[in-house]
């Protein structure tokens, strides 16, 4: 399943870091952060509940870029 979330991030490099962090989160199959449209597209592994996985994604992203915002 694929879902798109609105995000707020200031620098392009931080967006890259967030993308990497999201990809490494358990339950995430693939993730793309689009800095230009301020969107994060997450593809979840089968049988994973997006809400739970996203909590961890937010945590991981906050770790690499404390200033970022992900609107669930």
């Amino acid at each position, binding site marked *: 399943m694929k879902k798109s979330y609105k995000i707020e991030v200031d620098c392009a490099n931080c967006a*890259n870091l967030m993308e990497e962090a999201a990809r490494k989160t358990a339950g995430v199959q693939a993730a793309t952060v689009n800095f230009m449209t301020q969107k994060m597209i997450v593809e979840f592994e089968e049988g994973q509940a997006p809400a739970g996985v996203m909590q961890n994604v937010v945590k991981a992203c906050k770790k690499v870029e404390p200033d970022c915002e992900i609107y669930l």
Partner: protein
Amino acid sequence: MQELIVNILLVVVALLAAVLQGIGSKPDSGMTKKQKVMLWRILGATVLLLALQVLGAPAFAALGAAGRWVRLACYLVDYWIIGHDILRKAYKGIRNGQVFDENFLMAVATLGALALAIYENGDYLESIAVMLFYQVGEWFQSYAVGKSRRNISDLMDIRPDYANIERDGKLEKVDPDEVPIGSVIVVQPGEKVPIDGDVVEGSSTLNTAALTGESLPREVGTGDAIISGCINMTGVLKIRTTKEFGESTVSKILDLVENASSRKSKSEDFISRFARIYTPAVCYAALALAILPPLVLWFGLGQSPAWETWVYRALTFLVASCPCALVISIPLSFFAGIGGASKAGVLVKGSNYLETLSQTRIVVFDKTGTLTQGVFEVNGIHHSAMENAKLVEYAALAESASSHPISKNLQKAYGKEIDRSRVSDIQEISGNGVVAKVDGHTVAAGNDKLMKRLGIDYINCHSVGTIIHMAIDGRYAGHIVISDVVKPTSQAAIQALKNAGVRRTVMLTGDAKRVADQVASELGVDQVYSQLLPADKVAQVEKLLAGKHGKEKLAFVGDGINDAPVLGRADIGIAMGAMGSDAAIEAADVVLMDDDPLKISKAIKISRKCLGIVYQNIVVAIGVKLLCLVLIALGFANMWLAVFADVGVMILAVLNAIRALFVRNL
């Protein structure tokens, strides 16, 4: 002297911050809350720094021994105001194992300079000012990028805000998402068509510029299908929706363009890989710069180690090294390029495809629907014994009862209402044609078999297509050629591609060799392969793919109908005439919104311009950076130059990136 310049700069920064704060208080400024807070901090820190500068060291000296520490405290407060978030982020970065980022660089550089200043009870100004200017640069970067991001998005914004639904005789504005299939919506002049549908009432002219980039108006009337995203120009239209908003053309296009920059190009990958290696490398280089030369001087040459000089140079080195200009401008260039292309009616599904497009050297075309109209029309009348129009009129009337496509083509060429009362005794001879009485004359219209059957001498035609021989009252009256018509811009399109550096143009078709050869020689296509089944087309493209050299890419252009496998197999698939065809939008990497093959060369030129800008930015940003780093290491530049090099290059790169948006004159 330097102090005067710095003071003037500080005044300028303070004024600028105040003015920007004023602009930011307007509701449509687009400044985020974060940016406004940062502006206040910049303003506060600048004013305090200026005050401390004007007071100067002597004022504190009057306080006696404590003066030195009071002065230090004042500067530290200022440093905290402007730099506390950087310190916090650097600390968090270290704790989370993300040591080497720009926050870390800035924190180390300014804290180092501060420590040197405390040690010497000297110039605190430099450390704080560097932090201040870095923050100013960051602020402009975030503002400029945010602003250009919004500008580009606005340009591409064809999203309709509402749909009008008539309830109890009154128009009501509703969210287009909430309109079910089969509802009747009203579109007034000047409004966007929000959802795909059929016109049930009214007629009007539509402006399709937002979709195709051409402002050629299109007439619609009752019964016509209409696609969302067009602007209604003249009359009120009532439309019965045939799709939900989410499935409508406008939503699909928006979705596609918005997600396009998520597919990253090789250049973008290169930059993110580069940034990952670059920052740690610079940190180690700075460390080496701080330690190695003094040690060499000390032990190797027996001179004084001059630790302060080398530590200072190392810190400056760190300030100058920030990779922001690169990291920001490359995706922005692609984003602007994709935005510019979509303004011209060319949808590119990703930055990577823009990159591939720019390397295209072989273009393979499908014939029908791509280079030709794909619609059969009366294309010639030969050996006519009467006026051409009269002959077509007889043919149309004779064939009027037939449901054969040919009869429709004839009726279209005739262009007037068919008066059935003029026709009688219609006799259809299957596989041959029709014999009928029109205005009292016996008219025979059909192929050569019909003529043979009726025993009439006919003249064979050299043209390609369907030939309708005509005989009136038993005498041969000429023949009408019905064939596929080459698009008016096809020839120019092939020429434009050659001018744009395309090495080879190839045409593939399922049609007969004679037809294919004629079209190819008319258009100037280099190679033709005819009588191909869809599977043969894939095989042929594979052969061509095997025959290309080096980095060159092969593009396949089709109309999206039944050539999806080939579109997928080519390096880049271009579908044309996507207005209303979902298949094309799905299958291709690049979608041309209208039928014009000239757009192919335009798309290639747009991609070249965009990639050119990307390379310029990469070269200039890395070049200037390296130059500064060398100058700093050799001691020819100080921290001021470092900050200006960083911010200046970034702003230049962002401005350059915006150029990719302007594609009209390509």
